[in-house]
């Protein structure tokens, strides 16, 4: 299909503003008389606040307010950034207070200070006297479920948030019928989003007595609802404004700092208060990626036919539920529309422990389950002596596949082409031959892995998106969306869709990048890789409506029927002849100023998108293993994606670069570590938490197989989270190829790699017997 703007690498709308520093982020806004808020955090992993003495802190000059849970409404609320559910049974777990009276992890917020400046606030924190009754704590999901384990929340026996699972077919029968039953254990670690911009918000009470919160968030409309719920306010009395944001990756799909920032302002008589976390705080008191343990048991025939799979998943959600079990459930839903298992039994458990809270992070459980599954498939291939790519090819679903549980239908499926393209790009066969029989301290290996992902959350949650377009006097349009630009480039993509429909050059589409819940159309925000797919449908609908109205006005002017005309490059043309009949500006001016018929051209629509589209892709990687030191480096990597039509190739590549680098960090280096005795984070800073630098990041190659997805705008499907899913298992499989050593846990941290290599006999025992 031929497009003018869709499919082109349009320069992102905010590029210049961001690189010149013109773009203003939450911390760039200042209010008169602004105060600073700081938080006192529990030094204990599990402790009840017995008594509180705030008198010394309150007496410090420059302190405006000091408060604890005792001074706040005792309303438990849920923080996850999901659309509200009218069905109480489908709501997120309400287990959080703005400040807690019982600390459940080291760093849990127990008191807050508001002061004239940060230093005074810090000093006041040291003057708060709190007496704790320290309780025993648990750090692992297994320990938390043991009988007699300390209970984190009263209403969750065994500390299990949920063990709801799904199944179809008869997996036990398949185990009996299959030639082989192969089992494997796989594990992932706690990692963090590490968005550049900290978690930050400021709040004040405005002239109408409403609470205004400015926040670096992915989900302004949801923040509004949750701030109101947490404070016991009518929802309409809260306004949330989201300016430019410096990354979120799911961490800001959660309500973390906003209710407290609002409470700080209320405690200080409505004065503006800024609450911006330090990096150390972001690590411990925002969200992390769930560490998961998976046990996979697969029924497979000798020819490689996968018959059934039983997945047991244990998800450590930390001290509060946050997105809780939704993440485990998401994990269980994504691999089904990739491999054609006759039966699946998915048994997840999400468990509370006394660790920092896990929540949404790019991929939403999917990187964990695909690490397990794609590693497992290579292990199976080895056991059966089948080529790992052949094993996968043999078991792929086909277009038209309908998931027996979600009922989602696969309408486009580019995996076979992704595999072919990936093999060709990395020169799979040639390198595979070259890598045979390697000895010595440096070894090369090839690995690959597949993934599947969705576009939005249907049918699990509501997928509602709003878009509003106003045509200006010059024929340009201003587009407002409730979906949030968080760096992924959505504003640019929406502008492209609008420009394409309206026959405008991109410069004639102005996008309001700030979301303000008083003004912005309703939309649940940036998550689930939903925006191009879901909001794109709303934007297209709004643009079509404007187009219809333009042609109606043009019909009035020209006497032609609307259907006989089109808009091309700011002109109205008679389609059959290609003849220009008037300018778009003429139409817009009529719409504004015609003495009889003036009615500015606008549209204000929303789309309730009750359909989903599966996105697919593969990673192909070559690694270079330093056997002696245990270091694994990526020599070459390709991510090949089927995301339907690519609306903006350069932005799409950018998504792949960011996602793959994030995945490689988790595959090789990143992990949050906790003192096993105290539960205190050991490395909650960017020196000790090994986020890869640009020097540690290989050249990342992106390629696309463009299928056409009938359900999406212009044939598009999701891409945002996709690139982060398959690199880790591909790297793991490549290390297996290089060394014959199968790793079952990420990251492949040099210390661990060293230990495994020695265990496998790859390293001679050192001869030194020194003391």
């Amino acid at each position, binding site marked *: 299909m031929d497009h003018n703007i869709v499919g082109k690498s349009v320069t992102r709308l905010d590029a210049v503003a961001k690189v010149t520093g013109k773009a203003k982020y939450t911390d760039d806004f200042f209010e008169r008389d602004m105060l600073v808020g700081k938080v006192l955090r529990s030094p204990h992993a599990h402790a009840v606040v017995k008594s509180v003495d705030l008198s010394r802190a309150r007496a410090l000059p420059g302190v405006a307010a000091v408060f604890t849970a005792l001074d706040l409404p005792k309303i438990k609320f849920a923080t996850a950034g999901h659309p509200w559910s009218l069905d109480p049974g489908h709501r997120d777990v309400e287990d959080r207070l703005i400040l807690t009276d019982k600390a459940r992890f080291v760093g849990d917020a127990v008191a807050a200070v508001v002061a004239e*400046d*940060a*230093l005074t606030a*810090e*000093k006041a924190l040291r003057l708060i006297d709190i007496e704790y009754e320290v309780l025993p704590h648990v750090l692992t999901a297994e320990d938390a479920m043991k009988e007699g384990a300390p209970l984190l929340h009263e209403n969750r026996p065994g500390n299990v948030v949920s063990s709801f699972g799904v199944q179809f077919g008869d997996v036990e029968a398949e185990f009996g019928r299959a030639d082989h039953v192969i089992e494997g254990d796989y594990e992932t670690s706690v990692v963090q989003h590490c968005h550049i911009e900290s978690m930050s918000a400021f709040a004040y009470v405005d002239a109408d007595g409403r609470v205004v919160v400015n926040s670096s968030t992915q989900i302004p409309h949801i923040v509004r609802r949750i701030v109101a719920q947490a404070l016991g306010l009518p929802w309409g009395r809260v306004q949330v404004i989201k300016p430019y944001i410096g990354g979120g990756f799911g961490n800001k799909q959660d309500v973390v700092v906003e209710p407290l920032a609002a409470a700080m302002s209320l405690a200080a008589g409505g004065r503006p208060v800024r609450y911006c976390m330090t990096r150390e705080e972001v690590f411990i008191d925002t969200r992390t990626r769930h560490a998961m343990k998976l046990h996979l048991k697969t029924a497979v025939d000798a020819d490689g036919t996968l018959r059934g799979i039983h997945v047991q998943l244990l998800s450590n959600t930390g001290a509060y539920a946050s997105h809780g079990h939704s993440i485990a459930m998401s994990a269980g839903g994504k691999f089904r529309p990739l491999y054609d298992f006759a039966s699946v039994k998915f048994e997840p458990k999400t468990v509370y422990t006394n660790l920092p809270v896990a929540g949404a992070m790019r991929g939403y459980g999917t990187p964990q389950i695909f690490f397990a599954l794609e590693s497992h498939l290579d292990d199976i291939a080895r056991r059966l002596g089948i080529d790992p790519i052949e094993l996968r090819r043999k078991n792929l679903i086909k277009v038209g596949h309908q998931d027996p549980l979600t009922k989602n239908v696969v309408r486009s499926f580019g995996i076979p082409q992704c595999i072919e393209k990936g093999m060709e790009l990395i020169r799979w066969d040639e390198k595979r031959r070259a890598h045979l029989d390697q000895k010595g301290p440096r070894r090369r290996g090839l690995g690959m892995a597949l993934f599947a992902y969705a576009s939005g959350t249907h049918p699990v949650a509501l997928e509602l998106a709003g878009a509003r377009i106003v045509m200006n006097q010059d024929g340009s349009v201003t587009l407002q969306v409730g979906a949030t630009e968080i760096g992924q480039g959505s504003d640019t993509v929406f502008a492209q869709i609008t420009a394409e429909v309206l026959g405008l050059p991109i410069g004639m589409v102005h996008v309001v990048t700030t979301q303000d819940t008083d003004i912005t159309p309703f939309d649940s925000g940036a998550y689930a890789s939903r925006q191009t797919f879901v909001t794109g449908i709303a934007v297209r609908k709004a643009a079509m409506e404007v187009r219809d109205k333009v042609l109606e006005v043009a019909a009035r002017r020209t006497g032609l029927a609307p259907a006989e005309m089109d808009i091309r490059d700011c002109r109205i043309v008679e389609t059959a002849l290609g003849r220009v009949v008037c300018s778009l500006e003429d139409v817009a001016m009529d719409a504004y100023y015609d003495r009889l018929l003036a009615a500015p051209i606008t549209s204000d629509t929303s789309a309730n998108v009750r359909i989903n589209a599966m996105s697919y892709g593969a990673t192909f990687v070559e690694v270079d293993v330093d056997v*002696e*030191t*245990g270091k694994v480096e990526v020599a070459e990597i390709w991510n090949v994606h089927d995301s339907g039509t690519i609306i903006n190739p350069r932005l799409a590549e950018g998504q792949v670069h960011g996602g793959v680098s994030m995945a490689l960090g988790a595959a090789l*280096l990143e992990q949050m*570590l906790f*003192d096993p005795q105290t539960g205190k984070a*050991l*490395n909650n800073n*960017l*020196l*000790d938490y*090994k986020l*890869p*630098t*640009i*020097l*540690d990041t290989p050249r990342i190659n992106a390629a696309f197989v463009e299928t056409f997805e009938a359900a999406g705008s212009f044939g598009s499907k999701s891409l945002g989270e996709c690139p982060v899913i398959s690199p880790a298992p591909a790297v793991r499989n490549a290390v297996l190829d290089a060394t014959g050593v199968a790793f079952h846990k990420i990251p492949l*941290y*040099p*210390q661990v790699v*060293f*230990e495994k290599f020695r265990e496998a006999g790859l*390293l001679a025992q*050192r*001869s*030194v017997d*020194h003391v």
Partner: protein
Amino acid sequence: MFDICELHEPGTLEEAKAILAENPGLKVIAGGTDVLIRLQHGSLAGAGLLSLKNLHALEEIVMLGDGTISVGAMAPFTTIFQSGLIRRHVPVLCEAAVSMGGPQVRNVATIGGNICNGAVSADSASTLFALDALLKLETSTDERIIPMGDFYAGPGKVNLRPGELLTAVLIPREGYEGMGGHYIKYAMRKAMDIATLGVAVVCKVREDRFVDLRIGLGVAAPVPIRCFEAEAYAKGKEVTPEVVQEIARLAVKPAKARTSWRASKDYREHLIEVLAQRAVAEAVKRGGGCCAD
């Protein structure tokens, strides 16, 4: 915003020494890449600071009459690794300097600060140790020159007397002349990281024999150390892969590695052997020798 009670910014070394003599409790701040972090974390709360940032004379890198290379204590790492003098005569110090932090850190972090901070992971320390460097320490009334080995007292502890400032690092001619060198910073990342292990090797090879070899290790013990037994073994030996392997094996001996959440003792010792072997082999190559295997 930092929690400090006073800040002195003298314009001359004499002035700085006088201020420190009067207020020996002042915390000296050079580039600030360590001190400011400690202030931010509250471990130096309420401190008084003596900043040396205006003492530009201490940034100079010069060769003295006797061939000693004097590196001013306030020389930032960027200046050091870009210095023609250092590149020509002590390239191994360039390697160490450029392995520090990232460009922004290297622009402000100084060699004097790196040493006085007493961190066992200091990239400059193990290299300077291998180069037999000396430290020039001055008070308002006194001056002394001591070997690197006498300066380190323990993790984060150095033998700096009250009122004393480190003013220069001296690399004597014998320390560097005719030596090939190599520094391996083994860290989890290629930038912005602290070393898991630092191995600095300098050596002189003539007619395929080790004339001199010195090995400095960082993060192998509570302080940077030298591997004297390995060094003594090497002297006069023919350069062969077996000899290099034996040197590496002996290099592990003085180490007092310990297990922490960063790395195990076992792994650290393994790395010392592997990396000492690699560093010696590379230093030999650069020193005009050859270690074919």
